[in-house]
């Protein structure tokens, strides 16, 4: 591993990570990609920090971004707490499975898997989202678990029905495993599960997925803490930077279109992903 920061002082390291985490929080909230996928390349590729520490710092940034933006969202009253809770059974249990898997596989493989998820997230970020929601209450499980709900629109309260509960639950299991394995929020996979499989309307799926991301990350964060992967020296600038960046991003997002930014950012993320895949495969990491 290239020792870019060999001999770097605590003060310099703190300042560099603080600025980087601020940008990660800002870009993460503007593009909807989240903080984690940016923090890991920043620490690992940019500063040569071991992937284990990078993942520990990332999981903290995921909780920070999720709780910060959730506070803004819940006021609008569209999070479906029942859908969130129900799917959290899958995401929390599988997150712990993910952390256990991370303990037994080589760090190089984790870096390669991370690179692949990064590529996938870049594609998902650019893809045009299609709202598949409707109110045909056909799912027996959705009725049994009271998952169908309603949300306010300009034309009054709109009802929606949840579909393919088993498929959605299975997708959340995959999302949770990757979240625990890589220290990310797995937002892109949760969106597939909720929008495409379960056909939940955007307004509900965005906030509900955010609720789940925080809870899932909390489960894996506690395990990472015990494994010694959450170093306070790294967590300090990451937490402060990501929270301030994400808060500013959420404010800008209300009045700015981010389509062009997303394209530029997708290109940057693609390069980062390829670099990480290369490093992992060549054993450089």
């Amino acid at each position: 591993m290239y020792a870019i920061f060999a001999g770097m002082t605590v003060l310099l390291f703190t300042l560099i990570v603080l600025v980087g985490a601020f940008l990660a929080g800002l870009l993460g909230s503007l593009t909807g990609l989240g903080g984690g996928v940016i923090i890991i390349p920043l620490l690992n590729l940019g500063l040569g920090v071991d992937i284990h520490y990078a993942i520990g710092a990332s999981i903290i940034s995921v909780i920070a971004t999720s709780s910060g933006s959730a506070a803004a969202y819940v006021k609008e009253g569209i999070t479906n707490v029942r859908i969130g809770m129900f799917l959290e059974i899958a995401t929390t249990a599988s997150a712990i499975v993910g952390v256990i898997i991370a303990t037994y596989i080589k760090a190089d493989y984790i870096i390669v898997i991370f690179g692949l998820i990064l590529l996938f997230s870049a594609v998902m970020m650019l893809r045009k989202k299609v709202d598949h929601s409707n109110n045909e209450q056909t799912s027996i499980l959705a009725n049994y678990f009271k998952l169908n709900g309603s949300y306010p629109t300009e034309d009054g309260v709109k009802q929606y029905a949840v579909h393919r509960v088993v498929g959605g639950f299975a997708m959340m299991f995959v999302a949770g495993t990757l979240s625990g394995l890589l220290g990310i929020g797995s937002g892109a996979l949760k969106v597939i599960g909720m929008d495409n499989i379960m056909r939940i309307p955007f307004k509900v799926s965005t906030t509900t997925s955010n609720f789940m991301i925080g809870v899932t990350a909390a489960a894996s964060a506690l395990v990472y803490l015990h494994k010694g992967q959450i170093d306070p020296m790294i967590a300090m600038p990451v937490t402060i930077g990501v929270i301030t960046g994400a808060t500013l991003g959420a404010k800008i997002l209300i009045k700015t279109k981010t389509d062009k930014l997303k394209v530029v950012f997708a290109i940057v993320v693609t390069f980062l992903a390829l670099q990480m895949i290369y490093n992992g495969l060549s054993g450089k990491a």
Partner: protein
Amino acid sequence: MSKEVKHYLGDKDVQVILGTLLRVGVLVSTAVVILGGIIFLFSHKGQAVSFETFKPEEARFSSIAEILKGLRTFDGLAIVQFGVLLLIFTPIARIVFSIFSFLMEKDYMYVLIGTLVLVIIIASLYLDIAH
């Protein structure tokens, strides 16, 4: 139909309290992290850092007990880690709060589901994985 509309309105007060809970959680934990960071930097700013290799055996404050112990000596890094712990517990508090609101709605199925999620998270605290 009317039942679901009522359910949405009932949830609204709960959601406002939840929003406040999350904001307070994030604000307080950030403040604690900043405080710990200042104390730590004040005495260690010139120290060299090395994170090129993962050394779990050198990890400090990697359990709740160690963090609380470090707090008593006003250790900067222990305070940072306590702030991180508060941040981790913010979404967990949201689960606890939701369980109570389901209890008040007498929705026992969701009291059970919420408790199950909580049990999974607490179980992760006791999971002892070899490094």
